[in-house]
């Protein structure tokens, strides 16, 4: 697979505290602290971590919605890698045609005073990509693809439910046919049944339009369903990146292990998982020395973890970990037996057959009476 985006040593620091006139020693909140990874064309890369780990900041800084402090973001365009960070404002605007974002909260990310048609069509007008009738045509096309009806386009966002609004937000992101989309918690504000609709939609659109996603979410089951590869973030740094199966079942970093073991298994026969992770994430203003995870790590044993920052290195093909002892530790993944909870299988089919049988019986009885 070819690389679409190559991120090198990306840093986003926010100044915190009062800056006094003669005191230059300002402290910084290291939201993203030296992150390097590649995004392949056509994949969905999941980005997980606790809140405050810098997921959203990373996602936004890739689009330069937040200005990175340092680093390179190389975007492949016509077989050349172009550094987005060096772009001037007007060039950046042009680049945004190719990279778009879907936000978490569909209730606040749509302008209440614009009709759906205006919302979806605005990117086209702003970038002078279409005019007049052409806008209508393009808007209708993309709206249809996202499961909206033509007659709904003249309505205002308040007339729509959460799921429908997220469809509008998706249509707006897709109307310029971008290659890359950052999805920041696209389903966490939605109900279970609606969540499934949107996840399926995102998957279908990816196939039809050959999109590449960076999928930010804290729900690990959603990520396992939606992504091919997963990156795990802790305190502004990546601790592990690998294909989904490896992250979930054979994690190599203790933090990933504790995340995976915290997923409540939905099989009532299984006992509750004991909490592996004690305490809470330290402040990113004053991160711990060495490996930032060492104060909470159950395997920490010597000075090396406390003093030396582990390198983010490849331990097996495509599996990167930043832990000194990645090879030595044998860690548990998410519970394997969850595969045996089978509601979509044969048992369920039998149930459905039974229900159809009952239904036809009732209909025949109804006719008799």
């Amino acid at each position, binding site marked *: 697979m070819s690389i679409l985006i190559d991120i090198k040593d990306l840093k986003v620091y926010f100044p915190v505290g009062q800056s006094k006139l003669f005191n230059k020693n300002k402290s910084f909140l290291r939201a993203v602290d030296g992150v390097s990874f590649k995004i392949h064309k056509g994949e969905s890369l999941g980005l997980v971590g606790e809140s405050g780990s810098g997921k959203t900041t990373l996602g936004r800084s890739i689009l330069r919605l937040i200005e990175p402090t340092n680093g390179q973001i190389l975007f492949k365009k016509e077989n050349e890698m172009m550094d987005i960070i060096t772009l001037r404002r007007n060039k950046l605007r042009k680049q945004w045609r190719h990279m778009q974002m879907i936000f978490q909260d569909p209730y606040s990310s749509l302008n209440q005073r614009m009709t759906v048609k205006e919302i979806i069509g605005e990117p086209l007008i702003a970038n002078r990509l279409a005019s007049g009738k052409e806008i209508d045509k393009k808007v209708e096309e993309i709206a249809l693809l996202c499961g909206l009806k033509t007659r709904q386009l003249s309505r205002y966002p308040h007339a729509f439910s959460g799921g429908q609004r997220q469809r509008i937000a998706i249509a707006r992101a897709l109307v310029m046919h971008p290659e890359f989309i950052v999805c920041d918690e696209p389903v966490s504000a939605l109900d279970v049944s609606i969540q499934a609709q949107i996840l399926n939609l995102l998957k279908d659109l990816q196939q039809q339009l050959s999109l590449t996603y960076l999928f930010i979410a804290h729900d690990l089951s959603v990520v396992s369903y939606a992504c091919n590869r997963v990156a795990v973030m802790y305190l502004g740094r990546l601790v592990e990146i690998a294909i989904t199966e490896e992250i979930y*079942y054979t994690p190599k970093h203790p933090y990933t292990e504790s995340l995976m073991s915290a997923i409540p298994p939905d099989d*009532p026969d*299984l006992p509750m998982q004991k909490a592996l992770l004690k305490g809470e994430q330290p402040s990113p203003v004053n991160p711990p020395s060495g490996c930032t995870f060492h104060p909470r790590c159950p395997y920490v044993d010597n000075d090396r973890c406390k003093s030396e920052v582990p390198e983010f290195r490849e331990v097996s093909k495509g599996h990167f970990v930043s832990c000194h002892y990645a090879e030595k530790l044998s860690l548990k993944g998410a519970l394997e037996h969850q595969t045996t909870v089978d509601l979509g299988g044969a048992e369920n089919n039998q149930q459905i057959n039974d229900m159809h049988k*009952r239904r036809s019986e009732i209909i025949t009885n109804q006719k008799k009476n």
Partner: protein
Amino acid sequence: MEKELLLQVKNLQISWLLDKALIPIVCGLDFSLKSGKVLALVGESGCGKSVTSLSLLRLLAKELKIVGGEILFYGQNDEKTLDMAKVDPRGKDIQKIRGGAVSMIFQEPMSSFSPLYTIGYQIMEVIQLHKDVSKKEAKRITVELLKKVGIADAKNAVDRYPYEFSGGMRQRAMIAKALSCDPLLLIADEPTTALDVTIQNQILNLMCDMKQEFRTSIIFITHDLGVVGQMADEVAIMYMGRIIEQGITREIFKNPKHPYTIKLLDAVPRLGDLEARRRLETIQGNVPGLFDRPSGCAFRPRCDYFISGICDTTFPDLREVSKDHFAACYLYGYGESNR
């Protein structure tokens, strides 16, 4: 002792008073809870699960009225049974119970503490209201409680303000507050929805320990089926203000009967799908609005098994489909009577 009935809700009906019209929100809810047990109320937003939980402590907004039914709270042996649906929501009777024998954990740990008082003060307030103790004693109990829920440095933490606590800590402080007067019943309205998995895991473990230690009954309101599988003894699935399926957790998960429950369980992405990468089942359409409640079974416009002339007449009752497992669907328990 262990199996005695603690709470019984009979045909509870709650309506929204809107310009003199009554819009039904909860339409006839029946459930009961034995002491030491955990009941989970599950459903999508708008199904009435939060309204139900608030009504149990009479915390409903002015516009929401209990129009019928009973909420019987049996309390301890020597106390008389109290119908909480009938008492004055501002009266002495309910105030004695609120925060005492029945306490509540709210969804938003961010907004459920007052920012103006210290965490310690807010917990002590509850203790002093319900127990006859001195201020010093109340503070001692508070420190003990905070220690118990795993807040480090509890001695100093009592004097901190809510903004100094993180989300997970606040939720733990909330639990400490809820447990401060040894409640018989704990109502937890989406206690972990706003939290990360790791913190969620800690909180659930904590609630399990508390249940075992104090034999507290819990009503757990959630839409997270994973959490339900771990915590609940019994599950009630709600849809548009009614319970449509109810039973022991294991039964509901392994052998769901109502078309809505089946779809709901299938719509959740699970880890097991990793290999299969199956498409998620979706439930077609949306939950209907409160103003256009369908006649008959509320789920019928989205149901694959809709039978015209039967499903659109009246709402089906909950009928037993197997031992201790009830479903409200014309597919179950109605065929026989028609034959």
